[in-house]
């Protein structure tokens, strides 16, 4: 199958609509959330129309069918990540997944390998999304552990020069993003994972911006925990994934407690079911899990390598065009080496909000602001940026529209 984004767009009903006075929708905000193919909506609706019942809880036919669909979705996610079925936990979002692991560690008692005390270390990076920063700040505060971080270079790369002192014998957790949602930088995991495991620390990967865009194999990466959001991967809102190495999930205490995650309950205490149940309290987001499975199947059918190559091609194209625009400063790597299709930039003294508003008037959707990575913005010396983020349905035409929009904005605000 040759890759044809124009043909793919037909699978996404939203592209039938227009923006502001009948303009074509140029959607360059997939880093915030992706659009959804019809197949994903169909999977959610099929669940409600034909199989809706509470999973694991009924001995009737609807409950059996619902359970089959839900557990089938778990298998699809597991295969997508090259993980084991029982290692996949459905959450509501990557934010919940990351809070899950941080809170669960906070619940670990003395003797448990995840128990943290004053003196222990938690390592993050300066390019983390708030979702992979604040939960660790909070965990550090609750346990007395010390939060330290890898710095970011002016080019927008991790500075690993001091890796052996940042990750040291005290380190218990290293949490970092696979791909920066601001800079587009894809982080080199091998050295970090190796060093982390050397000192007995676990590696938590925020894969929000990688899983939708390139093949992620948890076994090959040799990481310990991973989080991503369905809605950025063509899936429904309201569903995320938390993956953990099986042996570690056994020891990790639960986070949310309630129905279906227990082994036994009395008025004074409870014991837990094995993973994944232990981490899925309550009636789960069944229709959304079904929708996410449909999304991952869609991505597989298109081919993650095709998608990745397409994004690399468009990113290269845009980076080249941007290089020719005076006063446009790319915040992040300005070459295609180890970077994905999130391009943040500033443009002269037109504030990103104003630029974004002008682009919107042309039908072009970008994101402006600090992109939930405020410390990174400060480090890069920019209060805010404009970000264009690409996905499988974007075309050269979209890129050209953006470039033209930027040039027109200059005229508009220069008047």
């Amino acid at each position, binding site marked *: 199958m040759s890759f044809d984004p124009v043909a793919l767009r037909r699978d996404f009903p939203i592209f039938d609509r227009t923006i502001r006075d009948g303009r074509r929708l140029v959607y360059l905000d997939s880093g915030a959330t992706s659009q959804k193919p019809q197949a994903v909506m169909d999977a959610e609706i099929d669940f409600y129309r034909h199989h809706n019942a509470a999973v694991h809880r009924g*001995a009737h036919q609807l409950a059996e069918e619902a359970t089959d669909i839900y557990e089938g979705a778990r298998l699809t996610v597991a295969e997508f990540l090259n993980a084991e079925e029982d290692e996949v936990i459905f959450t509501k979002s990557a934010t919940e997944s990351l809070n899950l692991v941080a809170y669960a560690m906070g619940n670990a008692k003395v003797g448990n390998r995840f128990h943290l005390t004053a003196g222990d270390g938690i390592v993050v990076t300066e390019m983390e999304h708030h979702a992979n920063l604040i939960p660790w700040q909070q965990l550090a505060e609750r346990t007395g552990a010390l939060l330290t971080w890898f710095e970011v270079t002016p080019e927008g790369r991790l500075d690993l020069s001091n890796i052996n002192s940042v990750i040291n014998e005290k380190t218990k957790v290293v949490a970092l993003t696979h791909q920066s949602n601001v800079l587009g930088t894809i982080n080199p995991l091998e050295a970090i994972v190796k060093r982390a495991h050397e000192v007995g620390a676990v590696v938590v990967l925020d894969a929000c911006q990688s899983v939708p865009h390139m093949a992620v194999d948890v076994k090959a990466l040799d990481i310990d925990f991973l989080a991503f959001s369905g809605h950025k991967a063509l899936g429904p809102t309201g569903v995320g994934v938390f993956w953990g190495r099986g042996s570690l999930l056994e020891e990790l205490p639960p986070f949310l407690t309630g129905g279906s995650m*227990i*082994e*036994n309950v009395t008025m004074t205490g409870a014991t837990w079911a094995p993973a994944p149940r232990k981490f899925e309290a309550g009636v789960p987001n069944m229709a959304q899990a079904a929708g996410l499975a449909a999304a991952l199947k869609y991505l597989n059918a298109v081919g993650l390598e095709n998608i990745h190559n397409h994004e690399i091609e468009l990113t290269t194209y845009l980076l080249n065009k941007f290089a020719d625009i005076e006063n446009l400063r790319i915040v992040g790597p300005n070459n295609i080496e180890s970077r994905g299709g999130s391009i943040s930039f500033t443009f002269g003294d037109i504030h990103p909000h104003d630029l974004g508003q002008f682009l919107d008037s042309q039908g072009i959707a970008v994101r402006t602001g600090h992109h939930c990575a405020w410390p990174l913005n400060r480090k890069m010396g920019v209060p805010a940026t404009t970000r264009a983020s690409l996905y499988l349905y974007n075309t050269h035409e979209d890129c050209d529209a953006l470039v033209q929009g930027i040039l027109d904005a200059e005229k508009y605000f220069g008047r």
Partner: protein
Amino acid sequence: MQLDNLYQEVILDHYKNPQNKVLASDNDAQVHHVNPSCGDEVTLGVKLDGDKIASINWDGVGCSISQASTSIMSDLLIGKSLDEATAISEDFLHLMQSKGSEEGNPDVLEDAVALAGVSKYPARIKCALLGWMAFKDASVQAHSKEEK
């Protein structure tokens, strides 16, 4: 009726007249297992005679499937060697996972083939396995105790 595949005569018989359903006091190991999704419980004891299973005895509350399956299992495995019991248990597990595509070998599983129909009712497979899992657990404990 389709349901008759699930509730075979043999099953209802074992449910009404469960075998070995009296806990002994001199077991080598005794375990308590529950099915947390429905609350079925079984307490099961094992006594070994060298490598041979001298006794399986149990008590419990639960549905006809869990009770009959435990009863059938105890009848079937008493007197077997631990290795034989393991092989039979694996056969039974395999049958339960067959989604109705297999009938089970009566030479190996004897009365337990009556439980083949359970494999078409995913929510009930855990009921059928409750006693078997308890046996597995208890026999491993009993064996390791004997080795010491």
